[in-house]
């Protein structure tokens, strides 16, 4: 369904060159098939040797989606390699698995089975090293910390990689020593500060805040006001950007707070008058004004003809400026009459 498809390139070549290319491709395919045969028959024979281990790596490098081979690799570790190793050696092997899969992920960031293998490595790390004769959690914590670092590097490379965000949430939820939600809030602040159009960071922020409000670590009322200040900064800095507008809408919610609603309407109205002007800014400002004035109408001033008229006028201007959504604006105008 949402599988990334590779491009099928066409190139003009001589018949000889084409024939050679075809031969090369055929030998690559034959090699792959032979390797597959070898690995799968060893698997069937329960071959837990080092040779088998190396072969699985070769095969997985070519085709990391081969989930049954990842399974086999783990079984080789459990049945062949780990029984012959000390906890420290096991930890080193698992760290190595994590490095190897990091490389694999760079080329294939969306392959579920690679992530799955990493989770297995993290969740099956041995206790150690010993401190005062007692096994500690240091090795495991170190691996999980590094994992968080990997997720964050992926996000630095592509701030909108939602799989990396998902994975980051998984790591935070499963580390031996949990990080606080307030430190997570700080992380989103940094990401948003670095780039206001990082919608995924705003999204993560909204999730974190809800957690903090529900657990009582932050006062929802004060916190919301702080958020309005943060988002209005973003709106004024880059009013063309969608992320802040959507976040703002989320903060307003169902518009129960009349004071908040009126304050924000005023703020957006002022933004609309400000220079520099842009079509995008005007659209976002006007569309938001319509939405918020309707909330005011519905929740606090049901009879107000002034508000209604203001909305109708804004919708007419929007229809002119944004013909792609013409029908929608007409629909909204009709709704107002009811």
């Amino acid at each position, binding site marked *: 369904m949402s599988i990334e498809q590779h491009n099928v390139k066409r190139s003009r070549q001589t018949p000889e060159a084409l024939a050679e290319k075809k031969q090369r*491709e055929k030998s690559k395919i034959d090699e792959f098939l032979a390797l597959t045969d070898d690995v799968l028959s060893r698997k069937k024979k329960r071959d837990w040797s080092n040779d088998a281990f190396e072969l699985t790596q070769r095969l997985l490098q070519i085709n990391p989606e081969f*989930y049954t081979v990842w399974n086999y690799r783990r079984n080789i570790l459990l049945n062949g390699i780990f029984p012959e190793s000390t906890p420290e050696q096991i930890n080193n092997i698992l760290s190595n698995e994590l490095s190897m899969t990091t490389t694999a992920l760079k080329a294939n960031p969306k392959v579920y089975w690679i992530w799955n293998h990493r989770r297995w490595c993290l969740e099956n790390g041995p206790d150690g090293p010993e401190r005062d004769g007692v096994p500690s959690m240091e090795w495991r914590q170190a691996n999980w910390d590094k994992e968080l670092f990997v997720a964050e590097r992926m996000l630095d490379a592509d701030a909108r990689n939602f799989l990396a965000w998902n994975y980051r949430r998984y790591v935070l939820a499963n580390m031996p020593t949990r990080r606080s939600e307030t430190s997570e809030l700080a992380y989103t602040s940094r990401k948003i500060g670095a780039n206001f159009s990082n919608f995924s960071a705003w999204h993560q922020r909204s999730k974190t805040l809800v957690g903090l409000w529900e657990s009582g670590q932050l006062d929802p009322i004060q916190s919301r006001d702080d958020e309005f200040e943060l988002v209005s900064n973003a709106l004024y800095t880059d009013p063309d950007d969608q992320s802040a507008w959507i976040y703002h809408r989320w903060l307003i919610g169902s518009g129960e707070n009349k004071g908040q609603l009126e304050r924000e309407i005023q703020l957006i109205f002022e933004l609309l008058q400000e220079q520099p002007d842009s079509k995008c800014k005007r659209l976002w400002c006007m569309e938001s004004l319509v939405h918020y004035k309707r909330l005011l109408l519905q929740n606090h001033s049901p009879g107000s003809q002034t508000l209604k008229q203001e909305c109708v006028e804004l919708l007419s201007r929007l229809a002119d400026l944004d013909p792609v*959504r013409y029908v929608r604006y007409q629909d909204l105008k009709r709704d107002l009459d009811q």
Partner: protein
Amino acid sequence: MLPASLPPLSKGGHAAHCKRCLSGLPSSQVDIDPAKLALSFYCLGSLDVSGELEKKTKDWEREQWREWIWSQQTRGHHGTGFRASSYMTAKHSTEEHSGHDNPQIIMTYTALLSLSILRDNFSRLDRKGLLEFLRSCQNIDGSFSSEPLGGDSDLRTTFCAFAISTMLDDWSGMDVANALQFIYSCRTYEGGYGQSPFGEALGGTTYCALAALRLATKQLDPLSLQDRQKTVRWLVQNQAYNGGFSGRTNKDADACYCFWCGASLHVLDAGDLVDNAAMSSFIASCQFKYGGIAKIPGEHPDPYHTYLSLAAVALLPPNSSEGASWALCPLDPLLNATYQTSSWARAHIPAPKVDDDALGDAGI
């Protein structure tokens, strides 16, 4: 203000591109192996929706493809379904229950549609095994995994379960209430649906959620009017000025989202909010000189973007004055196939009903 006239839609060229991809791909495409059946569906679907299937393919080719698809029907320890291809079967393996050659839910969905496009009579379908397979894929949280042993479990795989049950006309393979619960848990404050809970709204998974809801409940009962409006707004805002749709907040337009978002609006009975002319104009600009449609103008095409672009045009066509090239076969947005194909599926996939009259005549 009249829109500028559209360039023609090169139906023939796009069909040819897909036909070529059906015939074979070079070794550089080996990582498509885990999705080969899906790829075949995009190719066949393109031929179907553009009305070029009979014209561009021969009887024996269609026969060959049917055979190939059926050879992917596999009985695992957890029921029967279709696997992506034979890439995980050792050449000399004679085992029936190999244990690692599992059916996959997305491949099963696309296999059923592909066979319907090819007008198979489904006499070879192991319906009982298919229901068992569905049951073994459903998780505690209501979602469906792509395979019984794991793999992605999210709205895409969950939609496939709804589509398969619809085609079977048999919902005993799933706990519908639990699945609906999972769908709801993927809703975001933007109004769309993420791939899984806590994720940001995506066009593709929003389609999956809405189509699944519609398939299971006929009306979109679980959605309140307010929720519906929010979803409509998010979707409508995803149409960019160039007419294309983006898949999420603050991303650029990509041809495939013309279907995911456009069809979502259609499912919500809000298809008229799409600017069809602008959308077609964007898709026209994504056409590749030698056939096929790419995700954005100037890039190389692929069957996935080709099919979804054509499907979007079929569902939300521009004005008839744009000419015959833009008139495609009517599309069923809930199963994502032409109406002719989805009707065939609904008629032939369910278990044959026992004819009581015939039994009476036979003295039974």
